[in-house]
């Protein structure tokens, strides 16, 4: 399932996928895979991404359908 919340949070800060990837210490392809819903990150990576984007886990990774 696509993670549009993460994509819009990243866009709101005017960050490219590469910039966000550098901030959290992963590859650009990993950020792309998370946004497209092709990869489920570990909790550690989720927290790092939240810290980088200034959001909470619920705001970025909670799926309302659950």
């Amino acid at each position: 399932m696509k993670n549009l919340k993460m994509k819009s949070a990243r866009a709101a800060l005017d960050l490219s996928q590469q910039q966000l990837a550098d901030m959290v210490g992963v590859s650009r392809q990993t950020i792309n895979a998370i946004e497209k819903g092709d990869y489920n990150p570990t909790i550690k990576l989720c927290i790092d991404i939240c810290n980088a984007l200034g959001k909470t886990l619920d705001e970025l990774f909670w799926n309302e359908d659950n």
Partner: protein
Amino acid sequence: MDSIILFIVCFCIFCVVLFLIIWLGSTLSDKNKVIFDERQLIARNKAYKYAFFVLLLYFTAVEAIDILGVLDFHCSSQSNLGIGLFLSIGTFTVTSIFNDAYIPIINGRPIHSIILYSLLGFSQLYYGMKMIEDNGGIIYDGQINIPIFLSFSILFFMMSLSLLIKLIIDKKASKEKE
């Protein structure tokens, strides 16, 4: 008996020297060390698994064909080894490349590897064809003898082609808006 002991001693010395070279190389190249992120590690682990099972299935199939006597001819052990290695290493490499978990992709220098693999492919192809010419064909001594060089030349060409395709895909993807 003496020759066996000598072989074991030489093999042990070779292993120690190889270990020292690899250790020195990894210590000196810490600056350029490739670190895989969690997704890439998972992708590489999957690639290793696929490669292992491909190799296992291949040798099982070869032995089954041999035992059942389905074919009138069989491959030499060198040919079987070459084809098995080609399938296994090829599986690992192609899976890693298309999951963005291959070192030249991560370093951002796939062109160097494409050129290197192509050159290696051509050199292996030359030696392979020369061996076939010297032996007067692939089939001799009542069995198929595919030179191991030929298997590796196909492997290197396959790796080179995979990297090239991946490079084109990545370039097209980077042109699209994120």
